[in-house]
C-alpha cells in the first residue's frame, strides 16, 4: 500500500532539529569534559600505585596497554597479595593511622549528630529563654560558630590541651572535630525537624508518651534520613581534616591525612608508594560517595533551600 506523504517537515522544523542536536553535542561535551576533570586525578592516582619507576618517567597512562601493572607500591605498604600475610611495620603503622581516623571521624560525627539533633529539635519545637538568649539568638549562636576559623582556636587549644594532658589523644581531636561540624549538623537538622508536623507529637503526647519518648520513638525514625545525611557530611569533613590533627597530634593519635602529608615532605618521593597510600586514604570516602551520594546531596541541599 503506497501512500503519499501528506505532511512534510517544514524547513524551520528541520533546522530546529539540527539546532537541537548541536545543543545536545555541546551539552554532553561539557559534561564529559568536566567528568574527565573530576575523575582523571583519581584514575591517575590509582593507576600510578601499580606503576614502576620507568612507567612513571615515560608517562604511561593505560594499564595493560602501556605497561604491566605491578604490586610495587602496595608491597611497600605491605598491602599487596604476597605481603599481606607477613608482618610489615609500614602496614602496622598504616593500620594504626587508619584506625585512628575511623575512630575519630565516627565518634566525632556521632557526637555531633546527637548533640546537634537534640538542639535542633528543641529549637524547632519550644521557645527558650537561656539568660538573655531567645530562640533566634541561640540559633545564631550555634551557626555563628561556622565563621570562626580553626586557626583562632588552634593555638589556645594547643596550650590548653597541654595543660590537661589531652595533647596527642583521640579524645582531644574528637571534641574539636565535634565542635567544627556541630553548626552544620544543627543547620541541616533544624530544617528537617521543622518540616515534620507538630501534630505527630501532639498525638503521641495525648496517648501518654513523654516528650523525650515522643522524640525518640516518633520523630527520630522520621528524621532518620536527615540524620544520616548530616552524619555522612560530618564524616567527610572529619575524615579529611588535617590542620588540627597536624597541630595537636604527634605520635599516638595521628590520623591518616597527617601520615600522607608526612610522606610528601621528603625529597625524592616514591611515586608508587605515595600513590598507594593516597589511594588507600581516599578509597573509603570514594566508596561512600558513590554508594551514599543521595544522602550527601540531600544533606547539602537541606540548608540551601528554605
Amino acid at each position, binding site marked *: 500500500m503506497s501512500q503519499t506523504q501528506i505532511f512534510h517537515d517544514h524547513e524551520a522544523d528541520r533546522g530546529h532539529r539540527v539546532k537541537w542536536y548541536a545543543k545536545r553535542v555541546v*551539552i554532553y561535551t561539557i559534561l564529559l569534559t568536566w*567528568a574527565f576533570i*573530576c*575523575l582523571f*586525578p*583519581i584514575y591517575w592516582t590509582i593507576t600510578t600505585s601499580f606503576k614502576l619507576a620507568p612507567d612513571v*618517567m615515560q608517562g604511561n597512562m593505560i594499564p595493560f596497554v602501556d605497561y604491566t601493572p605491578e604490586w610495587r607500591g602496595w608491597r611497600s605498604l605491605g598491602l599487596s597479595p604476597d605481603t599481606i600475610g607477613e608482618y610489615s611495620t609500614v602496614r602496622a603503622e598504616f593500620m594504626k593511622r587508619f584506625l585512628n581516623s575511623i575512630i575519630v571521624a565516627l565518634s566525632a560525627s556521632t557526637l555531633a549528630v546527637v*548533640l*546537634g539533633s537534640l*538542639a535542633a*529539635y528543641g*529549637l*524547632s*519545637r*519550644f*521557645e527558650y529563654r*537561656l539568660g538573655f538568649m531567645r530562640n533566634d539568638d*541561640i540559633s545564631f549562636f550555634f551557626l555563628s560558630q561556622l*565563621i570562626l*576559623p580553626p*586557626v583562632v*582556636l*588552634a*593555638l*589556645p587549644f*594547643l*596550650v*590548653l590541651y597541654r595543660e*590537661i*594532658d589531652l595533647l596527642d589523644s583521640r579524645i582531644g581531636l574528637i571534641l*574539636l572535630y565535634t*565542635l567544627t561540624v*556541630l553548626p552544620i549538623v544543627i543547620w541541616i537538622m533544624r530544617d528537617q525537624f521543622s518540616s515534620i508536623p507538630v501534630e505527630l507529637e501532639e498525638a503521641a*503526647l495525648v496517648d501518654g508518651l*513523654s*516528650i*523525650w519518648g515522643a522524640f525518640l520513638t516518633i520523630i527520630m525514625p522520621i528524621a532518620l534520613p536527615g540524620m544520616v545525611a548530616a552524619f555522612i557530611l560530618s564524616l*567527610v569533613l572529619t575524615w579529611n581534616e*588535617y*590542620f588540627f590533627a597536624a*597541630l595537636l597530634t604527634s605520635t599516638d593519635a595521628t590520623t591518616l*591525612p*597527617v601520615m*600522607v*602529608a608526612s610522606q610528601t615532605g621528603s625529597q625524592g618521593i616514591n*611515586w608508587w608508594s605515595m*600513590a598507594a597510600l*593516597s589511594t588507600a*586514604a*581516599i578509597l573509603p*570516602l*570514594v566508596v*561512600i*560517595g558513590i554508594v551514599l*551520594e543521595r544522602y550527601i*546531596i540531600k544533606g547539602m*541541599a537541606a*540548608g*540551601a*533551600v528554605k
Partner: protein
Amino acid sequence: MSQDRLYVVTNDQITPGRARAGQVMVWGSFAILVLVAAWQVLGGYEVVTDFANWRPTLYAYLFFVTCYCISLVVRYGEQGKRRLFVVPATIFVLSMVFFPLIFGLTIAFSDWNLSAVNGQQFNGFDNIRQMWHDDFYWNALTNMVWYTLAILVEYAIALGLALLLNSQIRARKFFRVAFLLPLMLSPVAVSWMVGKSMLEARFGPVARLARSLGIDNPSFFGDAETARAMIMIMDAWTFIPFMMIMLLAGLQAIPKDIQEAARVDGANPWQNFWEVTFPLMLPVSITAIMIRIIFKLKLADIIINVTSGGPGGATDSVTSFIFREYRDRSNVGYGTMLAMVYLVFIIIGFTLFMKLAARWMRPKY
C-alpha cells in the same frame, strides 16, 4: 510571651524539697569545682601538693555540668526536660569556644615560646607592633582577598554545571556522582595527587600536556602568579561540587510553571535565565557563596602540603602562615595575636556582606 510550637499543658508539682535538692546539686558541684580549681591554682604556687596536670579540674567541671543538666529536671520538671534538648549542645559550644577564646586573648598579649623555660611573658602590645611591620602577614591577608575573589569564578562554573545537570540529560546519576567525587577527597591527598604528582614539572601528565602544547619548561610553582593560580584551581576543584549541589537543589526547587509562563510570554532562553531563573536563585546563591567563603577562609591544607607558602610567601593563606609561624618558632603568643586579628577582619567582613546581601535579596518588584 511567645508560644511554643509544640504546646503542652503540664501539671508539675515541684515540691519545695525537690527544688531545694536541685539547688543543692548545682551549688554543691560548683563548690567542688571551685575547690579543686583553687587547689590547683595554689598548687601552681607550690603552696599545696600539685597534680601533674589540670585533669582534676576538668573532671570537676564535667561533674558540675552533669549535675547542672540533671538539676534542670529536678528543679523545673517538664520545662527542665525541654531545656535538656538545647542545654548540652549550648554548654558544649560555650566551653569549647568561649573559654579558649578568652584564654586565647591572654595568650595573644604575651610572648610565649612553648619550648622555652620561662613560659608566658606578658608583653602588652608588642605583638601588635610586630604584626604591623610583618609584611608576610599582610601579604597573606591580601592573598586571602584574591583567594576569596576566586569564588566568583567558581560560582560561575558551579552554576553552569548545575544548569546542565538540571536540564534534560541522560546518565544524570553518573554525572552527579562523578561531579561529587572531588569533594570527598581529603585536601592532603589532593595536594599529593594533583599538586605534587600531576603538576610535577618533569613527569606529571599536566606538564606533558603543556609541553606538547608548546610550552618548553612548564613550571607550575615557580613564579608567584602561577603558583597562586594553581592553588586556586586545586581548591576550586575540591569545592566546586559543593556549590554545584547547593545550586542544583535551588534550581530544582524553582517551580517549572514560572519558567514555562515566561516562555509562553515570549522570553528567549537567555532572557529566561537572567530575568527569571537567576533572580529566583539569588537567595540560594548567596547562601552557597557565603558557605563557600567560610570554607575558603580556612584554606590551609593544600598550601601547607604543596608549596608551604612559597615562592616567597606568594601563596600563603593566613592559616598556613600562622601554622608555619608556630612550626618554625613555636611562638604561640604572636600566632594567636595574628589569628585574633584575622578573626576581627572576618567578623567585620561578614557583617558587611550580610548587610549587602540583605539589601540584594530584598525583592525588586
